[in-house]
C-alpha cells in the first residue's frame, strides 16, 4: 500500500500523542493528581490510529474502559480530555464521567464505556441508524479480547450480520482479559475465527503495525460503506502497563513483556520513517516537541480549571428534570 508521506506522518503524530498523553496520565495518577481508575493504552497505539485514519468526522466509534487512544484518534480535544481526568468542570463530561466515560457526539465518539462488551450493542444500534438513514457513514466498534466472551459480542455480531449493518468490529487482542491470559479465557487463538459463525469476513493482523491495521480496517470500512455488511478485524497487540494503574501485574513474565517491548509500535514506526526517508531526525524531534507542549498545555488547562459546583451533581440526569440538592 502506497500512502502519502503526510498521511504517514499524521498517523505517527497521532500515535505519539496517545503515548505522551498516557505517560502523562500515568505520572499524574501516581502523583495523586488524578482520582479513580486509569486504564492506559500504552503499547496499543497502532490499533486506534490505523483504524481511525480511515474515518471521517461524521463516522462513529464506540470505545472501552481503555479509551483514551480511541478518543485522541477520533479527534478528541486533549484539554477537555485531561480536564475530565481531573474531574474538572471544563472536562468533556463536566467532571461527571471521568476517564472511563469520555464522549464527544459532535465527533461521532459514542463514549468510552466502563462495562466490558457494552459497546458492541451500541455500535450495532449506530449501524442500524446509519443504514436506516441511508448515509455512507460507518461505525467502528473497539473492544478487547476479554469482551469477546460476553453475550453482547455474539448478539451484536449476529444482528449486524443478518441486517448487514455498516459496523467494523475491531478487536484489540492484547492477550489478557484483566489478569487472565487468553489461553485460559477462550479455546481459540485467533478471535477472527469467530467471524465464521456470522458468515462475515474475519481477519487477523499485527496490531502493532499501523499500516497493517490501516489497510485491514480500510478494507472493512469500504465494505461497510458499500452496504456489504460488518467485518471482524482482530489486531494482535499488547499493553505495556497493567490492566489499570496500580495493577501488580503478577500474571505475566518479564520476558514476555520484553518481547513485546521490542515490537513497540512507535519505535517501529520511527524506524520506518527514518529508513524510508519519510522524516528526518529533526522532523521527529519537532513533532515530539510540539506534542509535549500540547500535553503540557492540556495539563495546565486541567489544573487551572475549576471543579464543578456541587449543585451541578443533580443536573444532566434528564434533559428537563433537575433533581433535588441536599
Amino acid at each position, binding site marked *: 500500500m502506497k500512502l502519502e508521506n503526510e498521511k504517514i506522518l499524521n498517523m505517527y503524530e497521532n500515535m505519539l500523542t496517545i503515548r505522551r498523553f498516557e505517560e502523562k496520565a500515568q505520572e499524574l495518577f501516581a502523583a495523586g493528581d488524578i482520582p479513580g481508575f486509569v486504564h492506559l493504552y500504552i503499547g496499543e497505539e497502532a490499533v486506534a490510529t490505523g483504524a481511525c485514519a480511515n474515518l471521517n468526522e461524521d463516522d462513529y466509534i464506540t470505545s472501552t474502559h481503555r479509551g483514551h487512544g480511541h478518543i485522541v484518534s477520533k479527534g478528541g480535544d486533549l484539554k477537555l480530555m485531561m480536564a475530565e481526568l481531573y474531574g474538572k468542570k471544563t472536562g468533556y*463530561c*463536566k467532571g461527571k464521567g471521568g476517564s472511563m466515560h469520555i464522549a464527544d457526539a459532535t465527533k461521532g465518539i*459514542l463514549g468510552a464505556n466502563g462495562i466490558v462488551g*457494552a459497546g458492541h*450493542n*451500541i455500535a450495532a444500534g449506530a449501524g*442500524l441508524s446509519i443504514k436506516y438513514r441511508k448515509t455512507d457513514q460507518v461505525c467502528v466498534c473497539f473492544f478487547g479480547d476479554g469482551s469477546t466472551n460476553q453475550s453482547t459480542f455474539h448478539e451484536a455480531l449476529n444482528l449486524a450480520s443478518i441486517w448487514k449493518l455498516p459496523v467494523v468490529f475491531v478487536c484489540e487482542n492484547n492477550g489478557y482479559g484483566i489478569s487472565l491470559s487468553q489461553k485460559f479465557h477462550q479455546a481459540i487463538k485467533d478471535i477472527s475465527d469467530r467471524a465464521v459463525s456470522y458468515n462475515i469476513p474475519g481477519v487477523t493482523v499485527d496490531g502493532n503495525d499501523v499500516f497493517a491495521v490501516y489497510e485491514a480496517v480500510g478494507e472493512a470500512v469500504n465494505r461497510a460503506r458499500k452496504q456489504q455488511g460488518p467485518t471482524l478485524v482482530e489486531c494482535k497487540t499488547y499493553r505495556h502497563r497493567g490492566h489499570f494503574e496500580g495493577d501488580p501485574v503478577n500474571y505475566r513474565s518479564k520476558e514476555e513483556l520484553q518481547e513485546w517491548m521490542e515490537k513497540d509500535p512507535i519505535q517501529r514506526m520511527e524506524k520506518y520513517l527514518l529508513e524510508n526517508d519519510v522524516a528526518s531526525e529533526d522532523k521527529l524531534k519537532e513533532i515530539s516537541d510540539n506534542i509535549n507542549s500540547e500535553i503540557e498545555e492540556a495539563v495546565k488547562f486541567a489544573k487551572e480549571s475549576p471543579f464543578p459546583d456541587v449543585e451541578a451533581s443533580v443536573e444532566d*440526569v434528564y*434533559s428537563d428534570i433537575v433533581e433535588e440538592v441536599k
Partner: protein
Amino acid sequence: MRKMTYAEGIREGMRIRMQEDDSVIIFGEDVGQFGGCFGVTAGMFEEFSGERVKDTPISEGVIIGSAVGAAATGLKPIAELMFVDFATVGMDQLVNQAAKMRYMFGGKIGLPMVVRLPGGAGTRAAAQHSQSLESWLTHVPGLKLVYPSNAEDAAGLMLSAIDDDNPVIYFEHKVLYAMEGEVPDKIEPIPFGKAKVKREGSDVTILTYAKQVYDSLEAAKQLEAEGIDVEVIDLRSLYPLDKEAIEKSIKKTNKVVLVSEEVKRGGYIGEIAAMISEDFFYELDAPIVRVGTLNVPIPFSPVLEDYVVPRVEDIVNAVKKLV
C-alpha cells in the same frame, strides 16, 4: 370519542408518531408480520414496512442496546420486549447504558428511546412471565417510567414517551390489552408526572396504577355500600411522580393505602410510602398501608396465582384497617 382497546391505544400512539416522523422505528421479537407477542403491533408491518417495524432475533440485550445506539445517532427507536421478565437479560443496557449515558457524558447527548415492557400476573404464565418489576427501574436515575391503565392514557402517554429526549420505560399490563375504553378522536400527549383522580372520596386515599386501578375502584364501590368514601388515584407516571396530587388527596383524607402488583418487599409503593411519611406525616391520621403481591414468585396454578396477587378483598380489608 371512540372505543379502543388498551392494546389499540398503545398502537395508535405509535402509529400517530410514525406517520408524522420518519425517525420513529419499532423493533423487537416477532413485532413484524406476526404482529407482536400480544398483537400490539398488528398491522404496523404492513402499514410502515419491515424497515420500520423490524423483527429481531431473540436477543434482549441487543434489542435494548441497539436502541441506545440508534437513539444516540438520530433515530427515535421503540424497543419491545415480550415480557418485562426478559428485561433481566438486557439489564446492563437499561441500567448502565440507557439510564446513565446522558449524565456520564455531561448532558451532551440525547437518548429519545422508548422501551415497552409488558408485565403483570393473571395469564397463568407462572414465575418467569408474570412479574411486576417496576421498582427495579424506578430505582435507577436517568429513566422515566409510565404505566397506563386504559386506552386513552396508553395512547397519550405513548405520544409523550416518543417525544421525550430521555429513555422512557413504558410498562404495559398484559391483562388489560383487550380492555376497551373511550378515546378522544384527536389523541393528545399526556404529560408525564400527572396522576388522575379516578374516583373522588373523602375518607381514604388509594394510590395505585395499572390493573390495580380497576381492583381499587371495585373495592371502593364495595366500601361505599358500607359508608366508606374512598378516593382512587391512578398515578399513571411512576417517575416523574405527581407529588402534588398525592399531597392534595392526603390533606383531604388523611389516610393512605398504596396498591401495586409488585411483591410487597422492596416494591416502588414502599418508596412512595416513605416519601409520604417524610413529607406529609403530620397530615396522616393513621399508618400508611401497602397492598402488594405476597413475597413469592408468581405460581402457576390459577388458585395459587389468584391468591398471591392483590385481590379486591385485600384492598377492602386494607382500607377497613384505617377507618
